[in-house]
């Protein structure tokens, strides 16, 4: 900490993000305990079965959660840089759009939209220009991979029109 010369401890606030991470880790551990408890412990020759390793992992996760919480309370968790969430939202939106549209409109159009929205996240605002550009680029990629390399990429109206 940069304010190391002031002896007061009040400058060290508990790190909320670290506490949330600790809770999430503990929740994952709980989820493992809950799911694995359903399994009949087919232990075979030994006491080890399909449940042994998940239990061990869950116990370690709880230890890590406590450790994270301690670092969070002491305020010596990782420093972070400020994040701009606008661009992140554009790109996540692009990926979501591609995921939902893929089977309806085919690879080229869905991926073209992803392409344009990613470029938007990086500051290219002219969507009327970038969407067609993305569709053309994706269509070229589709042609190479689906026709030449025989990969099964979903076809939509555009692909059926030209092939």
């Amino acid at each position: 900490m940069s304010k190391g010369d002031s002896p007061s401890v009040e400058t060290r606030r508990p790190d909320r993000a670290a506490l949330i991470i600790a809770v999430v880790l503990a929740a994952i551990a709980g989820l493992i305990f809950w799911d694995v408890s359903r399994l009949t412990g087919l232990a075979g020759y030994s006491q080890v079965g399909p449940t042994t390793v998940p239990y061990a992992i869950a116990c370690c996760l709880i230890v890590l959660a406590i450790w994270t919480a301690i670092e969070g309370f002491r305020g010596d968790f990782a420093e972070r840089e400020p994040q701009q969430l606008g661009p992140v939202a554009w790109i996540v939106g692009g990926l979501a759009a591609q995921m939902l549209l893929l089977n309806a409109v085919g690879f080229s159009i869905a991926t073209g939209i992803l392409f344009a929205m990613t470029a938007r996240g990086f500051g290219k605002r002219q969507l009327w220009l970038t969407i067609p550009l993305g569709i053309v680029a994706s269509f070229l990629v589709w042609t190479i991979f689906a026709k030449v390399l025989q990969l099964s990429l979903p076809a939509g109206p555009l692909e059926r029109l030209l092939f």
Partner: protein
Amino acid sequence: MGTLDFLLQGLLVAAQPMNLLYALIGVTLGTAVGVLPGIGPALTVALLLPVTYQLDPGGSLIMFAGIYYGGMYGGSTTSILLNTPGESSSIVTALEGNKMARAGRGGPALATAAIGSFVAGLIATLGLAFVAPYIVKLALVFGPREYFALMVLAFVTVSSAFGDSTLRGLTSLFVGLTLACIGIDQLTGQARLSFGVPDLLDGIEVTTLAVAMFAIGETLYIAAQGDKGPDKVEAVRGSVWMSATDWARSWKAWLRGTFIGFPIGAMPAGGAEIGTFLSYATEKRLSKHPEEFGNGAIEGVAGPEAANNASAAGTLVPLLTLGLPTSATAAIMLAGFQQYGLQPGPLLFATNPQLVWGLIASLLIANFMLLVLNLPLVGLWVKLLTIPKPWLYAGILLFATLGTIGANPSVFELGMLLAFGLLGYIMRVFGYPIAPVVVGLILGPLAEQQLRRALSISQGDVTVLFTSPIAAVLLGIAALAFIVPLILRARGRGEVLAQLAASED
């Protein structure tokens, strides 16, 4: 038959025209993608995996080997000319290389990096060929408990020994191990952590996870930093050829770098980074021109770059002989093997020698191709560096999703890609390393299998894990690798370890 006979046979396999073509495509694509800023070898290999889906195992692995070596060469070009290394193992190259480029000596810097990579790749690949049979023999006496101990060692070194925090490294590892539990248990056939979702029964694809964490996570992270203006690409001025003094100062550094890098890569302890730092420190101490270090000393490029490539070849030793990936790149290569139902390890040398030796021989050939591709054609690769960020990252996401769709065109798989991408982004924001997640996912099931076998043989007696001398020594080293960094960090000596962070590869 001796190693030489096997290697010659391998060369015959690799020299078949189709295989030469695959190797050429591999090195070209690998270099092209590896040059792109922000893309390290791990992501290069993950992004290009779909290109190999339709090939036979031999051709596919040969292309893969080319991609791997090509990605390593490409990364050094980026770090010399752009000063934003795409891979943590190129950081040292950027230290001196970028200074040289700024001083108008970019050409010789690229040349010494390329020739150094070639020399190191050649010696280290031969080293791989000659060391591998001995390790295979050693591995044949390994039982389940020795394998388990070896994997524990790999887990510790990949996650907590380096980097700036034991806690975050271990957390990443256990996230990977948790994901590894999802799906049908290999020994009893029971579904674990799949919550009745049929798509989860097969478990999580390593390539989906790797592409999501490296490509999507990185893209989101870069986007969230906002526009900081374009990175400055140093133009290559003057000749790319090295002068006589450059040669005289480089050749010893290449050899030293190789002999530092290869053993470090070959140990089941992961990370090309350590070798590059050690090589840099060695060159700085031995140099007759110590004042040039920090201002563009050619030894500071030649040595680390050789060490980098030598340890890249070194990581193939545990991967091929023991089936043990010690870096994210090796983990993805292992996934590449597994898609053909091949499990690297001592058995593969016995059951499929043509494949293994063809692969090793094609690494030698790929290395020659890369020298030719990189010296005269360097101007072409430099153009790739100037692609504006919006198009670059839009293109990266296009290919990232293409790979997933090509492997499994389902909405669910794309949803996982998005979810893991967000996870990768959040982990980057909080400084969690990514490589342990990937290694945990692929090595977790293998470690579990060995552990349960060992315990079944001993009928549940846990002490059996420590009573074999080999296993006890390996676990002892693992314990040291866990405890020593913890003490160093507690005493405030963590900076050195943070510099050695195995964050990307």
